[in-house]
């Protein structure tokens, strides 16, 4: 809706600007094309003035300068000098029908209009009145009379005219604009709906029918693509689930017989050790297979979350206790730092337990010489709670941080020898994502790794 008004405003503004430019253009054109003739030669006033100045009395005779005479010639005009008494004292190229004497009435008459149809122009000369006559029908003479009041208000009137023009332009542009917008609005709504991923079915009538058809077909195409993607994700997830299922039976046999051999007293120690290696590798394969399945389900959002309110402190103590109960090496020191017992998140208990276990296991397996590991719960504002697992071990080079949470073998990921099978941290990142949270890693080489699990907070029993 906002966009529509913006478009209308732009449209109106542009229209007015165009109108004004057109007006200006017309004025310029008017000046340069229509009135250009006026300035082609010197005006009659200039000519008569020049002649008046060029006419001198010398030794009782009037002499016209050469330039003035030339001027007369080029204009095919004639000139005469009337004495104060009305007699012609001097003349040049004077047509024969022009009288030689005038009274006041005659002068008053021709001074405004024509003398015997010759357009005439006057100039005051020291010895009387100089009259310049042009050939018949070369000049039109009109008399204009204005009230001074009217003249004075002329700028305001001009301004008013301009304002009226602007108002008209505005009106017309708004009218046209709204009409166009009415046609565009469904298109805009359609495109917005497209960006939201909704299905769009526009009316294909009207001036923009080809556009609406395009939008409709784009929507159809997007829906089809989405469905295809979903089907592919599902197929991929099922494929991985199928493979991990099929691996389990042969793996059962390998692990079963290997562990039986391991316990055979009649075998040599070396042979039993070999059996133990087979059994242990089988167990590794088992955990890899189940990790793979879980990661693929998380990746394609096929994992249903069993959400409940979980206190982070309970989870922290549980994870650490289990690590200690399962005989954690003494080289690793674990500490817990809980700021607030009641900090809790809504999540899948099993997945969160898995995530934190993975983070701790990550610190342990990347620091075989031992390190200090700290688990910490923190609030980050009112809507997020953090679970932080940090160690003072080797850390990960900063430029590889983004790399370690992407899936192994994904395009662009460098295969690293640091990771056992590389699913630990990617899995944590996906578990966080499945909970609308995120995994933030911070590290500097030799300064340890800090993994922050950021999860939406749960409103939880503060009444207790």
């Amino acid at each position, binding site marked *: 809706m906002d966009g529509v008004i913006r478009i209308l405003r732009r449209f109106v503004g542009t229209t007015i600007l165009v109108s004004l430019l057109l007006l200006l253009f017309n004025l310029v054109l008017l000046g340069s094309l229509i009135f250009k003739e006026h300035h082609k030669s010197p005006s009659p006033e200039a000519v008569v003035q020049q002649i008046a100045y060029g006419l001198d009395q010398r030794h009782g005779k009037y002499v016209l300068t050469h330039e003035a005479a030339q001027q007369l010639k080029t204009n095919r005009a004639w000139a005469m000098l009337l004495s104060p008494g009305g007699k012609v004292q001097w003349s040049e190229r004077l047509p024969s029908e022009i009288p030689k004497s005038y009274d006041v009435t005659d002068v008053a008459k021709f001074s405004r209009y024509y003398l015997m149809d010759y357009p005439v122009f006057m100039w005051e000369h020291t010895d009387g009145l100089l009259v310049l006559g042009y050939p018949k029908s070369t000049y039109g003479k009109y008399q204009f009379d204005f009230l001074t009041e009217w003249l004075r208000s002329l700028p305001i009137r001009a301004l008013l005219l301009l304002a009226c023009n602007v108002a008209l332009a505005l009106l017309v542009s708004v009218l046209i604009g709204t009409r166009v917008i009415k046609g565009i609005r469904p298109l805009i709504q359609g495109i917005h709906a497209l960006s939201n991923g909704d299905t769009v079915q526009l009316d294909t009538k009207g001036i923009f029918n080809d556009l609406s058809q395009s939008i409709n077909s784009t929507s159809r195409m997007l829906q089809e693509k989405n469905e295809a993607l979903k089907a592919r994700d599902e197929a991929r997830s099922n494929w991985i689930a199928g493979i991990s*299922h*099929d691996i*389990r*039976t042969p*793996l*059962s*046999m*390998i*692990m*079963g*017989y290997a*562990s*039986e051999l391991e316990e055979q007293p009649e075998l040599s120690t070396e042979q039993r050790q070999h059996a133990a290696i087979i*059994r242990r590798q*089988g*167990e590794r394969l*088992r955990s890899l297979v*189940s990790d793979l*399945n879980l990661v693929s389900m998380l990746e394609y959002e096929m994992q*249903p979350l*069993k959400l409940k309110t979980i*206190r982070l*402190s*309970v989870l922290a*103590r*549980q994870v*650490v*206790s289990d690590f*200690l*109960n399962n005989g954690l090496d003494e080289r690793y020191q674990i*500490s*817990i730092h*809980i700021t607030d*017992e*009641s900090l809790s998140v809504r999540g899948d208990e*099993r997945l969160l337990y898995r995530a934190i276990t993975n983070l701790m296991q990550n610190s342990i397996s990347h620091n075989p010489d031992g390190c200090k590991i700290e688990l910490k719960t923190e609030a980050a504002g009112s809507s997020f709670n953090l679970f932080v697992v940090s160690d003072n071990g080797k850390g990960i080079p900063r430029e590889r941080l983004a790399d370690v949470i992407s899936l192994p073998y994904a395009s662009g990921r460098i295969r690293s020898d640091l990771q056992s099978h590389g699913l630990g941290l990617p899995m944590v990142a996906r578990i966080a994502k499945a909970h609308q949270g995120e995994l933030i890693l911070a590290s500097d080489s030799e300064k340890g790794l800090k993994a922050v699990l950021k999860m939406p907070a749960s409103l939880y*029993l503060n009444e*207790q």
Partner: protein
Amino acid sequence: MDAMKNKKILIVDDEPEIREMIERFLRKEGFFRIYAAGNSVNALAISKLEKPDAAILDVMLPDGDGFSLLSSIRSFSDMPILFLSARGEDEDRLLGLGLGADDYIVKPFLPRELILRLFAILKRVYAANVVERLPVFRLGNKTVDLDSAVVRGTSREVSLTAKEHAILIKLYENQGRIVTTDALCEAVWGDESFGYENTLMVHVRRIREKIEDDPSNPVFLLTVRGLGYKLLTQESN
């Protein structure tokens, strides 16, 4: 334990190699009345004819799934059933257990684990004629009798309160291992036990007064700072 070994065990799995392997492990453990079936029809026939005492069922079978087989078996028999499945998803696990299976093992498995779980099931079901008794164990020169909820010293006998009793049971079940305060609170006060940590501390102190020679320097009921408690027993029966 030996009484268990003459129980009849039915193995149902569509993979002959898995059947053979499990049978081999069971025989090695001393079981000798073992039946095997590769599909539901055979499994049902054997169940009706031989009346086995326990069954190990696969979930995926060529002619149906183990869950419906379990339902069919349950219509005429109450024998304990252990699922052994390649399907490890929680839903399957919960479905199996919800239908009345006694345990659920996900493939691949270690034979030792299977045998231990089978024994646990058999013991639970067929040793029921023996009255269930809570354990009695020694801590130094004192004996903790959880069954009658008393601590017997050299000279006198003190009784345990209900809460102390519940705490000790939970600790004894996990002896030698850390039990978090949260798990203890939940065992005593139930799910909504947030905020009982201090009360738990008081109870633990009282328990120490009863079982420890020097309650200020405990040697049996240890505090694991920041996590919980751990019960160390010298001997148990």
